[in-house]
């Protein structure tokens, strides 16, 4: 009988009856061939590979992460409850030690969803990894988490949610933002003033192939993880780095994804993007599952796989090596960089403009952060979406110090409900969500 070396949990939720629109790249057909391949290979019959039925997330699970505008029901569909629930199911199986590791093959994805949600960005409404992570933090007392986002697009939503959190290491490997949506994720984006260094961006040039991406994992990601010592490693396992992906320009392969998984050893992998639904996803997903389970994947190749044809150029080699060096340099300098960013300020403010490409919404944010060396810092976001709602969102971090907690509560108390459509308080220290609504 075939047996997995690592007990591996799977949630398979292809959402065969849900899509944004019939010809959208993120649609019903997306996981069809993956499911065909996984079924035909008999992977679910392997002893030690356990398939779970997805749970649903609760309203509270979502509110731990997001400020949904105007409310949760406006931004979540049934599919989002299930896809985030699928990630949660896998995380619980891992935390309960029913399995050694797990992979949620779910859709829709989530890594472009920010903390404040007015609509959909990059096919994402809510951040399913963040909802999962904040759930296991609450339920299992997990503190230090590393997220390695291997989707071809910058994981800007996850970055936004963890920008001020020193306990969450977010590493995003992606095609350079000057050449691909969402246009962010540069080396200089290293986290907010209270958490400099805990966000790491590794932008790679178009046409990076196996050599480059695996080099990044070996030379930059693994040493940093070793240093950070996370309690769990989460892989945002987007598969659009594939050489046949229609909406990106990278040259990664199924063998490469499997090898990456073997090197990274994620506790939990959550499917993100990947739109080469026929030529890549079936092989990449099967490869990732086998790699997680500690099984042989050397026979698993795309029918047209030819490593010579997709080999990266010497210029790409040089770029990749240079980026890795710089990333490590920043990592080792992160404390000085943090001190410089904070300076003598008590509060640091920033203004941002956010575009929701899927729903065509423009949002302006004015953010105020309490500078703090003891915790992530109280955070106040004034957010207004053009011709839509204007809200005030106050976030008190999970490990808030007393001063930051007091500051967050004070901001909430003094906020003028008349001036906004809604005022939110996300008090993570007390694990409550409160709202003040404009009087009628």
């Amino acid at each position, binding site marked *: *009988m*075939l047996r997995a070396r690592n007990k591996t949990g799977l*949630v*398979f*939720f*292809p*959402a*065969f*009856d*849900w899509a944004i629109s*019939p*010809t959208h*790249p993120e*649609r*019903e*057909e997306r996981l*069809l*061939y993956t*499911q*065909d*391949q996984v*079924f*035909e*290979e*008999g*992977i679910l*019959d392997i002893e030690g590979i356990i*398939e*779970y*039925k*997805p749970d*649903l997330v609760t309203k509270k699970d979502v509110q731990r992460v997001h400020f949904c505008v105007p409310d949760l029901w406006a931004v979540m569909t*049934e*599919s989002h409850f*299930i896809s985030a629930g699928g990630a949660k199911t896998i995380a619980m199986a891992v935390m309960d030690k029913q399995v050694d590791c797990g992979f949620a093959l779910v859709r829709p994805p989530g890594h472009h969803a920010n903390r404040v949600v007015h609509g959909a960005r990059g096919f994402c409404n809510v951040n399913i990894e963040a909802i999962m992570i904040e759930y296991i933090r609450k339920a299992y007392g997990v503190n230090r988490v590393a997220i390695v986002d291997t989707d071809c697009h910058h994981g800007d939503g996850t970055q936004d949610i963890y920008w001020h959190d020193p306990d969450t290491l977010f590493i995003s490997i992606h095609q350079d933002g000057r050449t691909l949506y969402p246009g962010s994720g540069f080396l200089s984006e290293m986290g907010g003033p209270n958490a400099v260094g805990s966000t790491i961006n590794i932008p790679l040039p178009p046409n990076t192939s196996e050599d480059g991406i695996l080099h990044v994992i070996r030379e930059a990601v693994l040493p940093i993880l070793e240093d950070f010592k996370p309690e769990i490693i989460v892989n945002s396992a987007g598969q659009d780095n594939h050489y046949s992906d*229609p909406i990106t320009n990278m040259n990664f392969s199924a063998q490469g994804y499997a090898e990456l998984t073997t090197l990274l050893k994620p506790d939990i992998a959550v499917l993100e993007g990947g739109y080469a639904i*026929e030529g890549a996803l*079936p*092989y990449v997903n*099967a490869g990732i599952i*086998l790699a997680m389970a500690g099984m*042989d994947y*050397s*026979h*698993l*190749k*795309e*029918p047209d796989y030819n490593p010579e044809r997709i080999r990266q150029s010497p210029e790409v080699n040089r770029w990749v090596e240079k980026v890795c060096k710089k990333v490590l340099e920043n990592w080792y300098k992160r404390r000085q960089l943090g001190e410089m960013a904070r300076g003598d300020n008590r509060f640091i403010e920033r203004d941002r403009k956010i575009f929701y490409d899927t729903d065509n919404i423009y949002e302006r944010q004015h953010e105020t952060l309490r500078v703090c060396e003891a915790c992530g810092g109280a955070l106040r976001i004034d957010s207004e979406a053009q011709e839509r709602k204007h809200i005030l969102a106050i976030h008190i971090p999970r490990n808030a110090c007393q001063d930051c907690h007091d500051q967050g509560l004070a901001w909430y108390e003094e906020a003028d409900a008349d001036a906004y459509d809604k005022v939110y308080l996300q008090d993570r220290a007390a694990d409550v969500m409160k709202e003040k609504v404009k009087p009628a």
Partner: protein
Amino acid sequence: MIIGLDVGGTHTDVVLLGQEGLVRQNKVSTNPADLFTTVLSGLEKITDGIDPQCIKRVVLSTTLATNRIVQQRMPDVGMIISAGPGMDPELFRTGPHYHVVSGGIDHRGREIAAVDADEVLKVADTLEQKGIRYVGVVSKFSVRNPVHELAIQEALGERFEKVFLGHRIAGALNFPRRIATTFLNASVYPIHKEFFEAVVNSLAQKGLNLPIRILKPDGGNMRFDASIDHPAQTVLSGPAASVMGTVAFAPQSDTCLAMDIGGTTTDMAVLVNGVPLLDPMGIKIGEHKTLIRSLDTISIGVGGDSVVRVVDGQIHIGPDRLGVAMAYGGPVPTPTDAMFILGVGEGGDLEKSREGIQALADELGIDVETAAQQIYDKACQTILDEAGAMVERINAKPVYTVHELWEGSRLQPRHIMVLGGPAPWFAKGLERLGDCPVEVVPRWKVANAIGAGLARTTCDVTLFADTEREIATAPEESFTKTIPSSYSKADATAMALDLLRKKAIARGANADHLELEVVEAMEFNMVRGFFTSGKNIRVMAQVKPGLIHGYDPIAEKIMGDHFV
């Protein structure tokens, strides 16, 4: 009239059913070493003095092939496998005569690497030199496109007695299971053929030309001659007979548990609105996970004759059986002995039972009545717990659409129906310890044979259409048809039902009373770039498992004659 015959581990039950109800019932001892003789003597006994012309059908439920597989007395079988990229096909090796050849088909049924006929011929030479007579041919994704299996078969020519092709055995995807199932079919083929011919010839010699059918693990049956091409489908039909025995008496608009409590084991299944649930994957035989459809049943090692022991001050029941209860001269105490002491059961030698249970009571430091009560409760509680776990497992099965997850109601059985030798005795304990009413199936001792006799002919069809490739296929039926690009899910459903109707009639179903149902119908837009290039449609349809049309008066009569 109808004959139902169920070969059990100890006894073979035979019933003769007519419009007047249960006309005769017989039990003959099962000779595991010679099932042919067992079946024959059962049939002879039940037909004694009956005009064979009056017998409209005979349904056999046997575990013949299973025994052969479990005992591993199988002939050498050659396997030719074409896998393409994916898992290493060596992982699914069935034995020494397993050959991997080139060729590859992808998930949409497109060729990605060709078959090499010369390579196949070399394999054929090797197999022939080894004296192999039976060959299985399986290629990956052959249920999407069987061309490679057909090409290999063609290259093999007439050199082997029988060649089994993977795509003919089941429409579902699962390459390792397809390999195992094809291998099993080829392996049990000679013994099944021998059994088939021996039964038919012996009956003919006695002037009995009986229309014989074989019960399948999915609770349906097929004509005896049709079983020659699907011999592995005759395995493990015993539990199916039991379940079908309860179908006639199960509530038609509620969920119920069926439990066949035997000497060694208790077999359980769930019936929803009178229809038994099917296992979504396929039956497991020994080490082999297969694609053979079956009812979703579990078998646990608790029965009337299970061995009762005290281990570390705790009562343990089963899973083994060393003989009958001590009351009937058996060697060790059993739940049946406990029930005699409690006055629940009857017959047998009460003193012997008391002697056996007393020894256990001494070990536990309690009196014999208390020990008997604890044994009885433990046996009933174990059955209830396992039933609960089965329902939990069914409720936890993954789903793949929003609709199913959102709307899918949880199963909650509200009746228990029991049959089998000690059924009435267990019923009282199950009702007391459980939380729903327990009924004993009428004619509980032979209800399994009645179930076999009244079971319907079942089969299923999987149809797959690809409007971009302009092709509809049902490889299991060797059906391929060109379709227009306007072909729809409704067209596919109609086509699948048409194929199913023909298949069911060919397998022996009554054309006037076919209950067909669509199990799954899905349609996907295939988008290339940002344009729809075609539709990918999948339809699966089946004959609903159930009893033959017109059984109601028979069942009513059986229920009426209160033998209980």
